[in-house]
């Protein structure tokens, strides 16, 4: 397999780094020589990856502008060749890349992370959400031990900047606000119409959802809420929060766990 392996290594080195050793093994004719032929592949390689970045990160692209985004694409493609079968994962490390290389604009990494969270929520695993009347059918004595799990599409996006308002403005083709530090939490999930949706979360809601994700029952989950509100307010908060999550399709029956 020595020759085949060498030829493939040369071709890959050409695509990734422009190393031209492969040209000696490619034929030419009077109309188009070997180097021009090879360029069709290297152009195609870069265009395909650029297009993936532009489609998956259209809001980031419009925020950065054509020139800066093209430069980002070039740098990212050079630094992070694809290690995935599917192009949808090509830019999985883009948020980290932006945080590292564009640290003076921290909202860029968050914007990319937000777009990726939306994308992965869109085609996350299917699982039946709880029926709308789940809580009404739950007997009072069943509440404390009740365990619930997140819908597989649900993600919590923690933002240190006004990234989501920036995303919303750009999506509506409006001028985005200036970046400012602004801590916020967002739930992203796929609704019953299979469309991705998001909304902001209070700290208390985040705490409740985290507890559910950790497999805690409602009784234990309520203990975390004592950090946010007096004990007498907890039942009402729990009831209304859970009803809202269930109506939105964010929760499912608890997954049975092996002990």
């Amino acid at each position, binding site marked *: 397999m020595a020759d085949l392996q060498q030829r493939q290594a040369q071709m890959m080195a050409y695509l990734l780094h422009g190393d031209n050793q492969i040209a*000696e*093994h490619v034929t030419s004719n009077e109309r188009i020589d070997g180097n021009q032929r090879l360029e069709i592949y290297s152009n195609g390689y870069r265009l395909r990856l650029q297009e993936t970045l532009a489609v998956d990160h259209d809001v980031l692209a419009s925020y950065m502008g054509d020139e800066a985004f093209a430069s980002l694409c070039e740098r990212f493609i050079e630094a992070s060749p694809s290690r995935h079968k599917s192009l949808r994962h090509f830019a999985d490390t883009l948020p980290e890349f932006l945080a590292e290389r564009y640290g003076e604009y921290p909202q860029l990494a968050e914007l990319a992370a937000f777009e990726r969270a939306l994308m992965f929520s869109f085609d996350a695993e299917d699982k039946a959400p709880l029926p709308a009347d789940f809580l009404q059918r739950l007997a009072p004595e069943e509440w404390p031990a009740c365990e619930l799990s997140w819908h597989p599409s649900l993600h919590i996006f923690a933002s240190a900047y006004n990234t989501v308002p920036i995303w919303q403005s750009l999506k509506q083709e409006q001028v985005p606000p200036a970046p400012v530090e602004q801590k916020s939490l967002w739930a992203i999930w796929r609704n019953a119409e299979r469309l991705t949706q998001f909304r902001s979360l209070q700290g208390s809601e985040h705490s409740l959802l985290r507890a559910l994700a950790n497999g805690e029952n409602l009784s234990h989950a309520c203990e975390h809420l004592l950090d946010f509100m007096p004990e007498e307010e907890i039942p009402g908060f729990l009831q209304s929060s859970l009803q809202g999550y269930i109506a939105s399709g964010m929760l499912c029956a608890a997954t049975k766990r092996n002990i």
Partner: protein
Amino acid sequence: MEKHNDHNLGFGLGLRTDHFEEVLQGQPDVDWFEVISENFMVGGGKPLYYLQAIREQYPIVMHGVSMSLGSTDPLDMDYLKRLKHLVDEVKPSWISDHLCWSQLGGINSHDLLPMPYTEEALHHIVSNIRQAQDFLGQQMLIENVSSYISYSESAMTEWEFYSAVVEEADCLMLLDINNIYVSARNHHFDAERYLKGINPKRVRQMHLAGHSDYGDYIIDTHDHPVVDSVWQLYAKAIERFGPVSTMIERDDDIPALDELIAELDQARAISARVLAGEKKAGVAHG
């Protein structure tokens, strides 16, 4: 000679996101759909919902673009497991991938890169196809790719290599008529000689597509309608291979579904004309 094909699904289209809702609601006059396997190797959500719903109404074939059968990397068993899971769900009429390599050292070019046509490459890809078929529990269709380079060490023509691969791996052919035309122009070979070099018994499906013609070379872009020269080559293919499941691929500048169906009607008309001509000739000579 009576040509018969038990596996002829008729005339199909590539199922694309833009047309999901229209296909499901309108039940257009398309005999079957081909899906890109990788687009549905996801957990759930809209793509899988539509695939399952459309599968209830149409035969589906699954076409993969990243098995990288010719690569000297080992076959990606995780990918094959995920593909098999989808095959079990969708139960396609058949599955296909390409006579090419895409990945090396774990890095994916996301392109269909041509093989050198050597004995070494032949044995290597045959072994991988056999392994993939054993794992998937079925014969695969292997498609010829468009190519822009020829390796100086190639010791046989593309069609000799392709034919030897399918015979030795005991797989089937997804013959891409546009790719034959593109490669014939790029490498100055006779496309009809290519067709004559193919064993009709191995041909299970044909692809048609548009390309971008730059004069000195052609790039397989799937963003234009099928051109006349490719229609003419398709007629020759039908003449040689008889009725074979045929579909049109369109991956960019995707037009309205009606426009693609009108293009598919051209394929139906050409196939019918060629086959009717053959019958007449058969009677005349009979």
